């Protein structure tokens, strides 16, 4: 495979101004990923700061209620800062520090990646600036305040659709202004090479743990892993160690918003086509002229018109499948998991739970499903209330 490619996908489609910076990251990562000291520090951060390993919880009541496959929840929501995002960010910010950078910048949709980046920057003593679509700063106001508490500067992005893709645009623009002292800490398995690989490598701990934990609990591999997909970092992390295990179905759940046949969705695999954007060749929601579509989802974190290049390859080769889940289905699953298991999931993760509730009853009782609960739902409670017509103060 050509460097930085997943099949035909991936690449480095970025302005010349950034090429040296990206190659510098690549060189540094190639060195540090095999550096014992780096890996020891990261492991220590995972264990003593983030709270890893995260639990693999057997969802007894959900299993009984659905009357099919056994359901396990991978509890990434229990991580420090409340989502899987911390795994990648601790790695990237540590890398930034080793590279001698003094400043990190990041984009964020729901705010989880921004909060994680602000957290790691505070911990490791780096300056942090976060770009967030204006619309998202409104619907995730609490996370904006969290980032500010952590010492980060939040820039509301008012260009374009004022959501995640525009936040990515602005962060790239900012990086072209200041490359010497700054690292762009990308939030998902996307962007130019080497970011899709770096982020996947820092997230693959999820599937590594799932494998160990399920073998201990059940003595065999699961039949399916289900995870939500925006850019796709939690899904890539949950899938990675199972790619070579063909008996394990890998299922990504993408945001169908009001439905894939309406203009209001972010279902890239269902509605997208091949393109080149944000530094990578992949699959994007776009029109016949290559104009990137203004996508929509109730979850700010899945509200992205593309998917990481490794997912595009997994889709093309048939190794993974991707299914659309609507806002309504996700909200129902959000409420369902809260009531059934006493776990309030992120609205993003609720997309994966929604599909699991459909799949589980169709499988035999000895089948095993693992759902990656990528984050906790505290940030979404007010939004769910609004969706149900209740106005509460955040």
């Amino acid at each position, binding site marked *: 495979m050509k460097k930085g490619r997943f099949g035909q996908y991936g*690449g*480095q*489609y*970025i*302005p*010349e*101004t*950034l*090429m*040296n*910076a990206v190659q510098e990251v690549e060189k540094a990562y190639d060195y540090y990923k095999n550096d014992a000291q780096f890996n020891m520090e990261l492991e220590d951060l995972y264990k003593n700061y983030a709270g890893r390993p995260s639990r693999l919880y057997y969802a007894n009541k959900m299993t009984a209620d659905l009357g099919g496959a056994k359901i396990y929840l991978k509890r990434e929501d229990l991580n420090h800062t409340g989502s899987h995002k911390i795994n990648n960010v601790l790695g990237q910010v540590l890398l930034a520090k080793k590279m001698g950078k003094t400043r990190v910048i990041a984009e964020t949709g729901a705010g989880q990646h921004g909060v994680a980046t602000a957290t790691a920057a505070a911990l490791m003593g780096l300056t942090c600036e976060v770009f967030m679509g204006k619309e998202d700063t409104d619907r995730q106001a609490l996370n904006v305040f969290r980032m500010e508490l952590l010492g980060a500067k939040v820039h509301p992005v008012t*260009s*374009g659709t004022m959501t995640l*893709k*525009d936040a990515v*645009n602005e962060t*790239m*623009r900012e990086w*072209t*202004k*200041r*490359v010497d002292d700054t690292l762009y800490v990308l939030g998902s398995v996307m962007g130019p090479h080497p970011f899709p690989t770096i982020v996947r490598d820092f997230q693959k701990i999820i599937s590594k743990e799932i494998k160990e934990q399920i073998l201990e609990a059940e003595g065999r591999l699961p039949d399916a892993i289900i995870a939500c997909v925006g850019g796709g970092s939690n899904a890539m992390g949950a899938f990675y160690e199972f790619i070579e295990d063909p008996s394990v179905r890998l299922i990504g759940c993408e945001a169908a918003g009001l439905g894939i046949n309406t203009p209001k969705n972010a279902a890239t695999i269902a509605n997208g*086509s*091949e*393109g*080149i*954007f*944000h*530094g990578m*060749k992949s699959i*994007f929601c*776009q029109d*016949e*002229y*290559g*104009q*990137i579509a203004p996508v929509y989802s109730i979850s700010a974190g899945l509200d992205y018109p593309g998917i990481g290049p490794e997912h595009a390859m997994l889709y093309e080769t048939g190794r993974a499948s991707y299914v659309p889940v609507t806002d309504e289905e996700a909200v129902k699953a959000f409420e369902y998991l809260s009531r059934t298991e006493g776990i309030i999931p992120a609205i993003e993760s609720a997309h994966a739970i929604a599909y699991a509730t459909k799949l589980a009853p169709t499988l035999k009782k000895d089948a095993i499903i693992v759902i990656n609960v990528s984050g906790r739902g505290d940030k979404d409670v007010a939004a769910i209330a609004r969706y149900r017509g209740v106005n509460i103060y955040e």
Partner: protein
Amino acid sequence: MSRIQTAFQKGKAFIAFVTGGDPDLETTEQLIYAMEEAGADLIEIGIPFSDPIAEGAVIQEANERALSSGCTTDTLFDLIAKVRQKVKVPLVFLTYINPIYTYGKDRFMSKCKESGIDGIIIPDLPYEEKDELEPDCLRYGIDLITLIAPTSNERIKMIAKDAKGFIYCVSSLGVTGVRSEINTDVDSMISLVREVTTTPCAVGFGISTPDQAAKFAKASDGAIVGSAIVKIIAQHGKDSLSYVSDYVKAMKEAVRNA
């Protein structure tokens, strides 16, 4: 000799940029005539894109205006075919890789050839990815114009060696847009280019005043101005012809004497 090479034969070049379809195609057409008349030696036309990550706010907003006026790659090709009948200066497209890739690379380049486009600039197609498009460009005789940036350092020679048409020398870090001061050592960038190629080199990003244009044209083979022109169009819309024309005249004058 290609039209682009010819443009640099008569002395220092002034290169003007407009976003196609901003505020509408009719105005773009008239602006191209007016800019040639006023002395522009090469005209860059932006194919509007929803997410122009190398552009500052001025050109991004122009892209948005153009797209909402209904400008598409096809309507722009039709316009170029029409304009080419009257205009002698080289016409170059500036756009992002996705509109080309999605349109179909071969189809896009064949339409460029047919309608009379001489070259193409793609800010998000760096040297490492030029294979994506170079074979198609060569097949149709369209120059794939490369950019060098202040951060390019040792990459400059590698990039310049393969350059076609002209080299777009980015004057400063960041995105397009008017800057009051540009501190990059453009002289040393250009001298690295000169070591490996005779391909002309023009400087852009941030230039808005005749003094700046003269300074950078002196160091290179020409100056490129985009945001400053687009700003005039944003201000005067359909009535911007005479303002743009006066501006281009003044800039060409400054560059000519550089």
